């Protein structure tokens, strides 16, 4: 431990702590912009200036490690003036159109502007209006608002290893650019949206499709149904001031009904269906001898990553569509027939923790019934905005149940929302199908959690199945390279594009950091624990669906509606 004094208050902190961390311990929040708790120290915004006794000039609290006996002053006139000047310099080159900014009231820069109360800027206003890049169906890049903190670049380059964006030019022209300034859609961007979570301001954000949904809801001709992804129920509460990890499933269903959706369904149902289809596909591959490893295919950012960087592994991907797309395909066929409404009159909305889902839903091949499987994908953040716009306070709502038939789900379906969940759900089912024996213990804790690469071996009928679970594309790249070099031989690998899985997705509430991800993971498993059914193959509605419509797993109908590409 190191003993220091912050504004004359003694505090003992761990060795290697920064001034920023030490100050936090005594209740002093030093302003930061380029700092991000899950990223490396950049120290380029310079807003965290403090005074240290004996030091030459001011020091940046984010990058300066404490030393024994250090005397730190965060609140001298000199330090306060310096921080204010830095803020004023940033504001002078920032369009101050907060009222029409998507990050209004959720902006780190705006927060400091309010705290410092800068009535008048002493500087020339120098910001440049740059045309927004709206080429991507998922993400909008508005460089006019960029404060050049570099947080998006780090997540794109270091955590996701995609590298769609990088620093370019210098001085006034310094900017976060794509290769040759191409529109984002034409780059290697996988549309994961992690950059939008990292951005402290409104420079990168989800492309909002709320208006399309309002229009459909207002159209009496349309039967508007909505599906909610597993991860949204444990995150959307944060948008309404609840603690991270609050479970608000029932309240969210009520809110959706109040917004005017005709039916509120659960993507967990098609997650269960995915387990049946993908589980059988895996068993088929075991019989046929490959190709291995089989990769999960529910994460669209991951699919994009394979297509762009590792096309040689495309045939290793499960042919299953994602639960979102399976839902859409069934909604416009099975469900349409069942309720007697033509598919053209059914409008399918998804609530997803994900921006890449917008890209996925817009893909040409996602039109199994002839029309788009899913009409509009809204992120968690967009749904929260719709709820707020309607004057609904989610916290205060009573709870409601999902509608039938796609409202009966299992705990296996809900854990799709966290890294390791798909694998665990698959094991819970495949084991019992193959061995015809009941699993004694349903929890497979080895594959859970935020760790990037998790491995396990599952013994099924004397056969050792080697599995791996990966979250974040950087870790996926690491694993793919190992496989390419012949250093790893898995049978089945679950990959989720975003750190922590979908609970950490790019469409989740602003403030999604690993600390918060951990809380949501715990909540997801709590939901699972409390479910009456915890295995996909024990969901009775799944078998009704096969009986009434699909026939059997991997049937021709299944292939046409629920799978993509060649069947192996």
């Amino acid at each position, binding site marked *: 431990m190191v003993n220091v004094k912050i504004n004359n208050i003694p505090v003992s902190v761990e060795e290697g702590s920064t001034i920023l961390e030490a100050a936090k311990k005594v209740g002093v929040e030093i302003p930061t912009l380029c700092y991000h708790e899950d990223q490396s120290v*950049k120290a*380029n915004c310079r807003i965290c*200036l403090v005074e240290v006794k004996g030091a030459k000039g001011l020091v940046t609290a984010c990058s300066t490690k404490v030393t024994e006996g250090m005397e730190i002053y965060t609140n001298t006139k000199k330090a306060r003036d310096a921080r204010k000047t830095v803020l004023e310099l*940033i504001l002078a080159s920032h369009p101050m159109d907060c009222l029409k900014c998507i990050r209004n009231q959720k902006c780190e820069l705006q927060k400091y502007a309010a705290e410092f109360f800068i009535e008048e800027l002493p500087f020339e206003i*120098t910001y440049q209006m740059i045309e927004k890049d709206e080429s991507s169906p998922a993400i909008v890049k508005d460089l006019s608002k960029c404060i*050049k903190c570099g947080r998006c670049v780090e997540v794109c380059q270091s955590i996701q290893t995609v590298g769609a964006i990088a620093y370019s030019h*210098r*001085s006034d022209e*310094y900017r976060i650019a794509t290769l040759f300034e191409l529109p984002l859609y034409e780059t290697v961007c996988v549309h994961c949206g992690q950059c939008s979570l990292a951005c402290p301001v409104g420079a990168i954000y989800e492309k909002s499709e709320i208006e399309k949904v309002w229009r459909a809801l207002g159209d009496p001709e349309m039967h508007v149904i909505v599906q909610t992804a597993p991860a949204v129920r444990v995150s959307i509460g944060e948008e309404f001031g609840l603690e991270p990890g609050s479970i608000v499933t029932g309240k969210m269903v009520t809110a959706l009904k109040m917004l005017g959706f005709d039916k509120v369904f659960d993507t967990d149902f098609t997650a269960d269906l995915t387990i049946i289809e993908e589980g059988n596909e895996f068993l088929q591959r075991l019989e046929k001898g490959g190709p291995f490893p089989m990769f999960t295919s529910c994460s669209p950012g991951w699919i994009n990553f394979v297509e762009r960087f590792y096309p040689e592994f495309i045939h290793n991907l499960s042919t299953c569509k994602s639960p979102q797309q399976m839902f859409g395909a069934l909604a416009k066929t099975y469900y349409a027939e069942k309720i007697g409404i033509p598919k053209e009159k059914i409008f399918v909305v998804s609530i997803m923790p994900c921006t890449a889902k917008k890209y996925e839903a817009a893909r040409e091949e996602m039109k199994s019934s002839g029309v788009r499987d899913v009409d509009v994908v809204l992120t968690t953040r967009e749904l929260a905005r719709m709820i707020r716009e309607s004057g609904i306070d989610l916290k205060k709502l009573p709870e409601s149940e999902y509608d039938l038939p796609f409202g009966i789900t299992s705990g296996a379906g809900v854990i799709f929302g966290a890294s390791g969940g798909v694998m665990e759900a698959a094991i819970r089912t495949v084991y019992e199908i193959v061995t015809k024996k009941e699993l004694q213990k349903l929890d497979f804790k080895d594959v859970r959690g935020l760790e990037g690469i998790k491995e396990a071996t599952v013994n099924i009928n004397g056969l050792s199945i080697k599995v791996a679970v990966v979250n974040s594309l950087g870790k996926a790249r690491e694993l793919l390279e190992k496989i390419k070099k012949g250093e790893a031989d898995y049978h089945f690998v679950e990959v989720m594009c975003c750190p922590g899985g979908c609970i950490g997705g790019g469409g989740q509430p602003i403030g999604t950091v690993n600390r918060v991800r951990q809380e949501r993971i715990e909540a997801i498993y709590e939901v699972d624990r409390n479910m009456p059914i915890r295995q996909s193959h024990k969901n009775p509605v799944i078998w009704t669906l096969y009986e009434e419509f699909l026939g059997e797993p991997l049937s021709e109908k299944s292939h046409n509606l629920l799978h993509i590409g060649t069947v192996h």
Partner: protein
Amino acid sequence: MQKTLNIITENVGQIRPDSVDEYIKIGGFEALKKAITMHPLEVIEEIKKSKLQGRGGAAYPTGIKWEQAYYVDKNPKYIICNADEGEPGTFKDKVILDYLPLRLIEGMTIAAYILKSPKGFIYIRGEYPESQRIVSSAIKEAEKMGYLGDDILGTGFSFHIEVLSGAGAYVCGENSALVESSEGKSGRPRIKPPFIKNSGYLGMPTLVNNVETFACVPYIVKEGGEKFAGYGTEFSGGTKLVCLSGNVKNRGVYEVPFGTTLRELIYDIGGGLPEGRKLKFVQLGGSSGPCIPESMLDIKICYKDLKVKGLTLGSGAILVVDDSNCIIDFLKCITEFFYHESCGKCTPCREGNKQLLALVNKFINGSATYNDLETIKKVGQIMKEAAFCGLGETAATAHLSLIKYFEEEFVEHINKKCRANICNFGGDKDGKR
């Protein structure tokens, strides 16, 4: 007393720069031959005794730097010569690169021998294509003759040097940006720690020194550190290459012993100002350096004496400015330079330079107010105290020093008066422009 010396510039122009034979005739490579018979720490001891300090501008004691590098327990270690010489008004490294590249190569090879370094780079600025050609040729010749490359002088020790070049960014003269650029990345400074000495080129320990610093080493090794130190002052050993430019009769590069005063340099060596002109101020160390008035010319060129006055010598550029110049017009030039050269990474430098340029332009076009004068000070101060690297920290040095010594001229400009009659305050026909 002799005003100029030829310690490191001895035989400039007298030999073919890339001829090893001719270099040997003037005593070349004797230091290397001597160094390989010495223990590395003995060589370092001589450098410490010489009181040699980094000639690139930071003036870090070279002996201590080498000693630290020697004790870093990580291999391989790399050696980089900073020949990015981008500071406006600085052109002394070019003399060594163009006329005595083998002296530089010898100095680097001695460093490599001490650190067991397999590889070195000479990072020559993009604007010096001719120097790159000469140095590359000298490297080849030295390799041919066994003074560089594999198995140097039969010792079994191998050291290769490669010439690198950037695209001309000023910030690449900053050591960590130089290393970034050497790795093929955009030249932007790195966060420190880790320091370059521990984690530099490709993450390995790296010794970075200026051209002139390396060029001092052969003399020190050959003649002894004390002899070299004897040329200078008590605190600053040896000689310094200075670049005298501006409104002075004899412009050029001079090698002077530490202890020479600025007045001696400008009037005795430089021949004074052109007839009829009066000295207004002198800028020390290039565009990033302070501007000082005539009354301070008796200060000695000595790291310590300058430091006491809050000044630095920088790379050794000395720009003489006479009374026909307007300080605001002069500042515009400096501000435009830094506005162009800021790498953009940190707020104070990126935004500060932009604001400074807008402010200086207000003084030129006659729209400046007293508030603007205060704002220049405010911006300059935040840049000095809060910028990420040396570029941003020093970009407003000229502004702050000129306000300190010539504030009345700023005030005159607020009242639309330019005593040099250069600023036209938005089209006044009396203006020269």
